[in-house]
């Protein structure tokens, strides 16, 4: 991902990277082992001109089935455990229910073909006017996501967050950006939404939290 850019990983990225690397290790390991086994048997038992009937085979299938099932269940259960342990990435943070709310909430309305952001103080920014999504550094940001027209999917790949933007429904995602900076095309649409799908991009501007609060925060609830 973009871990080279960010000196300290945002929490969603750290969780994601750990989970991804876990799956990658076991996934690639499983593939290597199984394919190696297949290739070995292809080589070891290749036909070399033997004559006469092949040797009689006992039915051994159930042994391999049992071993396969047990190994599969073990590895997959461990994988599922890791996934469930990572659900903090997709649940809304519990601290956002506290008063005063330490998090900020920004409304997002997707449209063909851009993103309309509405900040707590009522200001809005539109991606098609080259206006970025501006968020405070080191602060949990909750996005309330909907669509004005068709099915879109709002993603910020560098933060490993994504949620569908569909008409008639409000979905949520959260992230916390660590480093201030301006990130071009950090927002992309991940669902085909018409001829402008490829250009449905947005910039992200991460600024100092105090400055953000002054410019966009409005009155804290």
């Amino acid at each position: 991902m973009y871990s080279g850019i960010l000196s300290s990983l945002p929490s969603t990225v750290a969780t994601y990277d750990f989970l991804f690397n876990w799956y990658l290790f076991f996934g690639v390991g499983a593939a290597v082992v199984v394919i190696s086994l297949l290739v070995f048997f292809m080589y070891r038992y290749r036909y070399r001109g033997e004559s006469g009937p092949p040797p009689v085979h006992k039915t051994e299938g159930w042994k391999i089935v049992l071993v396969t099932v047990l190994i599969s269940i073990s590895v997959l259960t461990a994988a599922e455990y890791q996934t469930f342990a990572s659900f903090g990435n997709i649940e809304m943070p519990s601290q956002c229910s506290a008063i005063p709310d330490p998090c900020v909430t920004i409304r997002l309305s997707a449209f063909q073909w851009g993103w309309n952001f509405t900040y707590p103080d009522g200001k809005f920014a539109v991606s098609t006017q080259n206006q970025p999504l501006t968020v405070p550094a080191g602060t949990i940001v909750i996005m309330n996501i909907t669509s004005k027209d068709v099915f879109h999917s709002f993603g910020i790949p560098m933060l490993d967050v994504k949620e569908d933007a569909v008409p008639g429904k409000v979905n949520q995602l959260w992230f916390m950006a660590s480093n201030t900076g301006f990130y071009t095309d950090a927002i992309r649409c991940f669902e085909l939404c018409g001829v402008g799908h490829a250009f449905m991009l947005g910039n992200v501007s991460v600024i100092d939290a105090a400055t953000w609060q002054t410019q966009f925060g409005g009155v804290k609830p």
Partner: protein
Amino acid sequence: MVSWLNRWLYTTNHKDVGMLYFFTSLYFGFVGAILALLMRVQLSVPNNNFLSAVYYNQALTMHGLIMIFWFLSPVALGLANYFVPLQIGADDLAFPRLNAMSYWLYLAGGVLAVLSFFVPGGTANAGWTTYQPLAVLTPGTGPTLAYLGMVLLAASVTLGSVNFLVSIIWLRAPGMTLSKLPMFTWFMLFTIIAMLFAFPTLIAAFVLASSDRILGTVFFTSTGIQPSILWDNLFWFFGHPEVYIVLLPGFGIIANILPSFTGRPLAAKNAILIATGLIVIPLSFGVWMHHMFLTGIPVALQGAFSVATIAISIPFDVITLSFIESLIRGRVKFATPMLFALGAIILFIIGGITGVFLSSPVLDRAFRGSYFVVAHFHYVMVGAAIFGIIAGIYYWLPRMTGKMYNERLGKVHFLISFVGFNILYFPMNLLVDMPRRIFTYQNVSDWATLNGIASVGAFIFAGAQILLAYNLLFTWYRGPIAPANPWGSPDLEWTSQAEGIAPAVESGATPPVGGWIGQLAAAPSPAAEAHGHYAHLSSRPIQISLGAMLFLIGAAFYPDILGLGLLGLGGIVVVYSFYGWARDDLRGRFQIPPEPEGDRWPFSAVPKMKLGMWVFLSSEVVLFGSFLGAYIFIRAASGIWPIAGSIHEVPLGTFNTLVLVTSGLTMFMSLQAIRNGDQRGSISWMAVTFVLGAVFMGVKVSEWTNLGATGFALTSANPGIGLAASAYYIIVGLHGAHVTAGLLMMVYLMKKSASGFYTKDSHEAIENFGLYWAFVDIVWCFVFPLFYLL
């Protein structure tokens, strides 16, 4: 002698129909491949202008639909048509004319899909998953034609499923017990069961979308009911079983041919069958929401679907490891079919691993909508499915043609295909940040390099298939005569003369050089021709399909005058064709030899037609279940529904309910009468049933007229009314269509009864119709409370 053209247009023979499916699907595969290459050219460099956005979106949409629906499943059905009857020792499928009609409906749907390219505005461009409301909002007639083509195709698949299911259960040769069933037939059985329960939902989804486009219903344009989520649920309930529908034939081929090339039995055969039939198929209907992790479903539900998804990988682990174990202490010969089978296994392992990643809702936050997903499903659906099918093509080519393909050419075909495939799709695994379905991209980090590599791989992989085409032609025109059983297989399609089971070829045919292979099925058989009619020919299947095609083309162009004309013409052709089919039956113009008593456990006591009706009705349950499920979703999501009882006349609906339920009783009386040998009584009770059914429809027409007059219209300015009207007219109309069809069937049955055809000992058709009519009754008992009382 029958002309070549008549033979192919009217054939109902399974080998002929198999050939028709096979070559038609290869054509569509070619079309799909061209569309893919156009996409890869456009994506090969950043900021390309080879295709504009709208053309790119059309290419990606129709590439997906054509490859999945008009190539992958039909090519498997072609092989299944040819070889399942041979493998089970049957003369043909259970319902030969239905089989021909399945093919012609498939082709008719394909014509609509291809036609959609050539109308103003071009074809569908909302993606093959047809996400809403984009799909109903894209303008033009092309998308409508494509979607109606999907309806015809899904009808074709559903009818084909009924036929194959009955055939495999009911037409097995004596001694062909389930334990002896070849693996390809087993896997086709599993595939067909999945089709039977998945495709009716697809029909429902595309009927709703098409009616939005044609009639102005508002299922997917009413924001208040979350139309995107409605579509997602309908589509993916079908769509995930579809993954296995596409995959399993290839796996069945692998399981079928491994023993021939290892010289030993398949390891853990029963475990493979249990894993597939009892775990994969049921679970495939329970994992669909893993395509919807990001739509805002509750986190707990995401967890549940994640577990279900991970669970379905365990049987595939068993299957894969069993395939691998089948090599142990074998004598592995690397003929071309075996190379493709082994290649399929390797590619499936890679695709399966990435599938496990996608089972995690957390990881899916990065992967959803990216090229990682594209790589995953192409490794599974192209790698395992297509390589498996190509293995089958090479394996059975000697049986279909009587000649051997060029082995060296086959090996080269495999090597280039395998290498090209991986050059094409592996880089996509690394494009985890790149959205799929974008027609162009700026020069972002490694995207240009990876896309360039993939595009080169695309041309290598596609180019390799020219070798397959060449090998097919080589075999046909210059292939050496094949041995009778080139692979030493014990299966019936190779050995039917070598064992005590009756040969699965036309009796009286002269065996060709090399044994019972190489001849295309004769049509008609000499015995039938001597009787002055063609036992294996019927013009009705193609007529019905042609009429349906014209009707739907007309529907797409409605309300243009051309559309209305075609609508009328198509309708007339369909009615005439069904009438002709009925008249053919009354005159005994289509005869097939009675099937010998075979191994039918566990359905030994159930007649063939009755089994067919039960299977068909089970697909109807899914169809109405899908429509009513969509209705319940809409009601639950909508906050502005008309108050119960404020639209429909409850007393009139109640009266109609009583009428229809009573007709169910009178139909039962009719059946009882014929069971007692009372022909006149049976006809009389059926006449009463007919009158009651007609009264039901008359009241309904009157009701609709009144509702229309009071403004209960699709285009109502009141959003709640528009949505309620959309649901009512489509769903209640569908039920009404079934009642009307039942009335027409009754006319046929009464006419046949009047000529003394049905007796105490032979009245199966009346019994079967009774099942259908009872079904129509039961559906109404759900429709009435849902629409009138709640």
